[in-house]
């Protein structure tokens, strides 16, 4: 599936939630289910530092596709990371570079996008895009 198709799928899923509790319960579920990172990948280099929670992203390039793994000490943040992985994992560096992210806004997680220190979402997206640019260069 393309990045946009996956985004559409997520938006549809979230449209089914009646209130905020269902939505966050789902994020908690996603966060719980996401396989974390091996401790050897929980390095400062992979760390995206927000003031409030720690997020690690690890990326590699296999057969021209970007492989992403992530972890966080806060479960909702980890759930959001899981959504980002779902969108970006196995995509080409070029598609990641050029992706237009609209699902975060559409599913009502925009508050986590404010450019404050308290969250890592902006930084997470930025980091993934940086991986896209870097791998595109390597390619």
């Amino acid at each position: 599936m393309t990045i946009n198709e996956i985004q559409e799928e997520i938006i549809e899923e979230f449209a089914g939630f009646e209130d905020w509790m269902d939505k966050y319960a789902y994020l908690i579920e996603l966060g719980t289910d996401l396989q974390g990172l091996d401790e050897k990948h929980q390095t400062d280099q992979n760390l995206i530092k927000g003031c409030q929670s720690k997020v690690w992203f690890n990326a590699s390039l296999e057969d021209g596709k970007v492989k992403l793994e992530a972890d966080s000490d806060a479960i909702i943040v980890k759930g959001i990371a899981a959504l980002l992985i779902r969108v970006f994992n196995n995509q080409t560096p070029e598609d990641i570079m050029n992706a237009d992210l609209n699902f975060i806004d559409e599913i009502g997680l925009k508050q986590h996008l404010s450019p404050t220190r308290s969250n890592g979402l902006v930084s997470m997206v930025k980091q993934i895009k940086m991986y896209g640019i870097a791998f595109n260069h390597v390619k």
Partner: protein
Amino acid sequence: MTLDINKIRKDFPILQEKVHGKDLVYFDNAATTQKPTQVIDEMVKYYYKYNSNIHRGVHYLSNKSTDGNENARKIVQNFINAEHLHEIIFTRGTTESVNLVANSFAERYIGEGDEVIVSELEHHSNIVPWQLVCEKKKAVLKVLPFNDKGELLLDELDELITDRTKIVAVNHISNSLGTINPIQKIIDIAHARGVKVLVDAAQSVQHLKIDVQEWDVDFLVFSGHKLYGPTGIGVLYGKEDLLNEMPPWQGGGEMIKEVRFSGTTYNELPFKFEAGTPNYIDAIGLGAAIEYVENIGLENIDAYEQELLAYATEKLSSIDGLKIYGTAEHKTSVISFLVDGIHFYDMGMLLDQMGIAVRTGTHCTEPIMQHFGIDGTVRASFSFYNTKEEIDALYNGILKVCKMFVH
């Protein structure tokens, strides 16, 4: 006197607001307090009718604004019982007040090898300015530790002080843990060894009556916005003789007597330390806030907030897996906590969805978090406009979050 909380709540327009469609429960009072209409109206009145740059003006408006600013100074003086009006210096807030003292005091009194003592309970604002001057002056920063309840180890202070110690900088109340520190004892110990004391009262002026003469404190600093006043205004109280000895910190208008390229002479106190156009409208707002608080009475406020604290401590302690950080015998209405297996950021985010505003993270006190070996806490801080019903809402909110984490 029993406070009429419903009547008080009507003074604060923001408390009528809805957040995410729910009634706002504002428990972030240690970060900033809400403003009563009495403060907002007073400031609006000045902007509408009297605004004009103060001091040295010859016209009506300038005199009105000057009077407002100087009247606010008088209100502050009476509020903390300073001996002289010119011992009250307006700053941008607690942080600027500490920076002013750290820089100016160090310039005059601190040299290579001298020592400054802060406590492990301090807000970064009362650590970093001292680190900066110690680095600049090649002085040594020493730290007074606290026990696991969050109480300072007072017995160690006397040992920590040496012939080279120049100043002890300590807070009255910890913003993270709510501990009320034994300031009078700290001042007595320091003064007995000839050491000056700065007290950070940012978290205490809104709860407890402070008398700087009774304490004999050398410097006292606090902010307006945690005292139901506007942001951007703060206070530095300093003893007259010290302030006279200390050099100006910032240069500019207002703070000079005569400017010549061959040499400038400085204005007298308090203007020597107030460079540039003063923040007079906010000073006037601060004056109105202090009058509002005094009208209700700090003793009444403290008694009611202690009631809220006791109620909340009991309720929250009954939650399985909830641990309160900061269990000092003398505490103000602040509860820092964590629930087993739930990150403070998750807790804060979910409580927010229920309209409950708490603060999460390190609260600008990383050394305290390091002491407990944690990354942060959830902090609920109560004011006299909060109610037991709101604490019930927090209690139920936490239970709801806990349920969301059980699979």
